[in-house]
């Protein structure tokens, strides 16, 4: 029993609620939000430490003092607290970037409240051990995202967020459908209990179908092929910080849920279910990178990179072995860092040049070297050039895939990585190399420094996670072992 687990979503909710009262006071709002962001991050780091110290490497909380599986149980295992740590980190840097970039008009209309409510939903989704409660946290996340994505009222924003909302509402409806089916077949909603009961049921036909329904639901949230088509344009409209937040967090919630359910509950016939995941992973990578190559708008390209990377992150689950899953978990961690950094940088580039079209930019390295090199490192990390963090994730996936004889997906992953390299180099060479052209520079090099402040720790982190990959890997391998041995999870929750 440990109330430690409620803080990661209770704190942001509290802050979000409190900030409703101070919506018009910019300074106070920022002070509260900034302090809370730091506190949340520090706390999340502490939580990871605590969980790592325990014998079970896992802590749980039976909310309301009701025994599992009857009440709602919160579970902090190695994966979920890591995800909480990462989302808090993303939240923190986004917050400080938002201070510098968000217009005060937007702040007046509860921007920071929505921001923290989004974090509430995300952290809650990572920590809950109850399927229906997961649905509720999904909805918290989603409705915050609807508001954040549509706010501002640009034409493209309204148009695309309508599609975004409808797509997600349909997926949510099917979440309920899946949960209902599971309740009918097993009579429970607690995920550990579900894992337990599903494992002892002999008829797997219906359960496989339910698994596929959840694949469909979480796939739509996690932007898997062919369920991601709404994403590129709807992420394009809002300000950079929101795109960064979404790119780093929203798809991850879907992927996390996919990993959780398909290791804990739907692990009975991996040769069927996980092969489908693998197929989708490959197609997602390919279509994502083709999308990135087809665009010349820098923000669009990075948005498509979200999709392409989703394929990598889910590949480990499809391969379904400890080392591959460790690769996936590491990759998710890495991707959250790099994606945010890239979107921040892209935001600055667009601000500096006044355009998003890479064909119209040129020679920025001369005037903005810092920006250029930060972009370069982030891009190389994304592609998987060693010794940056992206490499180790990719490497673990490759070894894991080959080890399980999944040669085709490894080949696809490597070819896609090459295409990723091409797409990132194309940006670098167009934007930063070349002759300085006549486009007006809205921000001088010096003026970009305050904007770059949140980027630098992220870049340092991607380097550190690469050079110091060992502790990180000890951790993610531990997390993957927990995922591959759900009995432990079940035993802790249902003694």
């Amino acid at each position, binding site marked *: 029993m440990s109330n430690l687990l409620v803080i990661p979503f209770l704190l942001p909710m509290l802050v979000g609620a409190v900030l409703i009262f101070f919506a018009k006071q910019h300074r106070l709002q920022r002070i509260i939000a900034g302090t809370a962001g730091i506190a949340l991050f520090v706390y999340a780091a502490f939580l990871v430490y605590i969980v790592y110290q325990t014998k079970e490497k896992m802590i749980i909380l039976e909310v309301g003092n009701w025994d599992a599986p009857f009440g709602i149980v919160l579970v902090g295992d190695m994966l979920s607290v890591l995800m909480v740590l990462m989302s808090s980190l993303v939240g923190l840097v986004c917050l400080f970037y938002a201070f510098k970039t968000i217009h005060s*008009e937007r702040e007046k209309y509860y921007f920071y409240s929505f921001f923290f409510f989004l974090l509430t939903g995300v952290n809650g989704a990572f920590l809950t051990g109850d399927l229906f409660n997961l649905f509720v946290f999904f909805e918290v996340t989603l409705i915050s995202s609807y508001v954040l994505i549509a706010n501002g009222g640009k034409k493209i924003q309204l148009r695309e967020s309508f599609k975004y909302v409808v797509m997600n509402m349909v997926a949510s409806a099917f979440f309920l459908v899946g949960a209902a089916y599971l309740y009918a077949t097993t009579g429970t909603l607690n995920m550990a209990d579900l894992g337990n009961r599903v494992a002892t049921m002999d008829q797997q036909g*219906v359960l496989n179908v339910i698994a596929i329904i959840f694949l469909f639901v979480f796939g739509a949230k996690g932007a898997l092929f062919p369920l991601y*088509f709404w994403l590129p344009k709807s992420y394009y409209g809002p300000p950079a910080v929101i795109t960064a937040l979404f790119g780093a967090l929203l798809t991850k919630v879907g992927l996390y849920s996919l990993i959780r359910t398909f290791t804990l509950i739907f692990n009975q016939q991996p040769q069927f279910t996980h092969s489908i995941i693998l197929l989708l992973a490959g197609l997602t990578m390919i279509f994502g990178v083709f999308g990135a190559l087809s665009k010349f708008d820098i923000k669009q390209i990075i948005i498509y990179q979200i999709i392409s990377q989703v394929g990598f992150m889910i590949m480990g689950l499809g391969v379904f072995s400890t080392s591959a899953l460790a690769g996936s978990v590491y990759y998710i961690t890495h991707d959250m860092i790099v994606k945010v950094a890239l979107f921040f940088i892209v935001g600055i580039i667009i601000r500096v040049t006044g355009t998003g079209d890479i064909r119209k930019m040129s020679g920025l390295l001369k005037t903005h070297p810092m920006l250029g090199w930060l972009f370069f490192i982030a891009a190389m990390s994304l592609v998987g050039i060693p010794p940056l963090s992206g490499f*180790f994730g990719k490497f673990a996936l490759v070894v894991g895939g080959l080890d399980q004889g999944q040669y085709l997906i490894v080949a696809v992953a490597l070819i896609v990585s090459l295409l990723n390299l091409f797409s990132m180099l194309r940006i670098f060479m167009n934007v930063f190399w070349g002759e300085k052209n006549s486009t007006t520079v809205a921000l001088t090099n010096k003026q970009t420094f305050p904007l770059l402040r949140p980027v630098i720790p992220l870049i340092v982190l991607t380097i550190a996670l690469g050079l110091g990959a*060992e502790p990180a890997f000890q951790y993610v391998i531990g997390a993957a072992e927990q995922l591959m041995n759900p009995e432990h999870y079940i035993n802790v929750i249902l003694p």
Partner: protein
Amino acid sequence: MSFLHIAIIAPFLFALIIPFFYKKISSVHTGWFVLVLPTVLFVYLLTFIPTIADGEVVTHLLSWVPSLGINFNIHLDGLALLFALLITGIGVLVVLYSVFYLDKDKESLHNFYFYLMMFMGAMLGVVLSGNLMVLYVFWELTSLSSALLIGYWYERKKSRYGALKSMLITVSGGFAMLAGFSLLYVMTGTFTITEIIAQVDVVTSSSLFIPTMLLVLFGAFTKSAQFPFHIWLPDAMEAPTPVSAYLHSATMVKAGIYLVARLSPVFSGSSEWFWLVSGFGLFTLLWGSFNAVRQTDLKSILAYSTISQLGMIMSMLGVGSAAAFYGYKAGFTAATVAAVFHLINHSTFKGSLFMVAGIVDHETGTRDIRKLGGLMTFMPITFTISIIGAFSMAGVYPFNGFLSKEMFLESMLHATDITSFNMQSLGVLFPVIAWVASVFTFVYSMILVFKTFRGNYQPEELEKKPHEAPVGMLIPPIILASLVVLFGFFPNILSHTIIEPAVKAIYPVSLTGVEHFDIHIKAWHGFNFPPLYMTISIIAVGVLMYLTLTKWQKIYAFLRLHKKDPINYFYDGIVNRIAPIAKKITKVPETGLLRDYLAYMYVFFIVLVGYTLFHFGGFAIDTNNVAEIPIYAWVLVAIIALSAILVPFITNRVIAIIATSFVGFLVALLFVMFRAPDLALTQLLVETVTTALFLLCFYHLPELRKEKTKPVFKWTNLFISIGVGALVTTMALSSLALGNKKPFESIADYFLKNSHDLGGGDNVVNVILVDFRGMDTMFEILVLGIAGLGIVSLIKLKMNGKEDL
């Protein structure tokens, strides 16, 4: 951590402080500071020669990512030392040369030396690593730093083109290599090279042996510019000349050679290895030399020449691999000895030639041999150096190139001795190709010297009045040229100190049992020595062909080789076409239509769920446990269904809204019927408020129109809709049927039992909401709260062009 680790890391650390030197001490050329490091490292490495010559191997272990088997182990043997000395030694000369080549006021030197040091560290890492993954890490860093160096003058379009090309090609090879190394890891459970070699049997007996070999070779061939991956090297000549001298002749391009040599013990027992390595090598040799002759740019000639020479070394390693088959007799190991020797020689003469090309460029402003000529009188020293370099390259006595060329020819003649791999018949090709390629080599070597330094002086074509280069710029090529001469006369100063340990690293004692290779290089073998006649004929035919150059050069136009290397058409074709193709592919699904996105989603749902349902035979109906249907239920359900079905047909917005609400109210009635009073009340109230909202928005909402859809769409929509509904129903029934057989209780009973005593309430639903599952409710109201605030901000927040980022 040992000094050798520090030696690898030092250049990286050094790279980081270079920008400070550049900024703080601007009066002194940054290169002078940089020069210190390679010098120290070179001297330090020299001290290992005695140890290594004694047959020892220096190893240091340092764990890095042991969870993944990646450890930063140093493995310094003869092969590694040879490369490390080349890297640091030539590094010293190149840095010195660059001090004079790059203007300290005009160039961004901090960038240049940053890249260069990064490259040097990476290269040292490649050759000193005892762990394949660490080797790979540094390998990719060489690709990266090399691309940055090629793009150093990034304002130029050609530099960017060259940088992209080299990056894409070498990294593609890198990725293949990553897969190959990982396969080795999967087979043997280790990345440590010596441990893999100890498990050769495991590797060779694996079904993945051939794919692994292909992947590793793909990496090696791309890096070492073997045909057809050689095309990046000529374009890499956009880099500043010191870079070309360093990376593109002496060090980086030899990383592939290094890898092939390093992994020879693992792969070389197979015929595939033999054929691939020697075959690609020989063809590259021929292709490179043949194409070098048609080039008009000094550096392009040198680039193709490098390609050709790399092919030559590669082919020798291939032929040498036959030794693994036949018990490591001198006759078979000779090719490998020649390979190692030529590797050294090539670095000396090619390095000096690149520097000469740089001097010519620097002093005249052009590298085009059509504009150059008659420079001998202006720059006699440079001319002398180039004579030495070019004649060594052409294989003329008494330079070192002559010796290794002769050894090469001899080993090619011995190719027919190999009794398997069909070599008795096909083996004849080896010396023939070698001879032809050597003739072309002779020709382009002559072009290089004589078109530049002899012939007519054309001052009107040159930007500057040529004169001899500054001393500092001359010292490095002079040193290299002296080595050319030195090794030519006293080749055996290398044989036991450097060459033998290197050969022993390629043929490890553990596999061969051979303790000692007898290496003695001599210039004169007597008259009964066929390579001698081959050399003489090469020179004779070469001279003839050089003199008649204009007569037969039309052949390039005839073969359509005069414009660009035909392999470039493939590369350019792919790179230029990939964006349009990607655009076409992306356009198809992303129509921007919500209808289409939803349709994909639903089709995905129907196909997968439907397939799974019928494949696993999950469908079932259980009528045992179902409730009876009273007559009013039939009526109610029929009305709900009918009013729902009507909604799509209504073209009046008010009626459509009301019909939908009607369905909602009837659902509330259903809830009453199913004994769910709270639910019924809630549904009733929510429906009321929702309807009120719809009507409030009434004036803002569009009028409905009749749908104008193509019949095809209409029918697919209908099909999809019915499919979704049918599947949901089917699954509902199947779930219920399965649930009836479940061997455990539903958790619901707990709530009924404990609600009163533990929850303190009799309305079980409410107790669940506020107590048992209070968390759900807490966040449900949060959702509602966000919706409320969201609506406010949606309506009221108007940015009016006030842009935030």
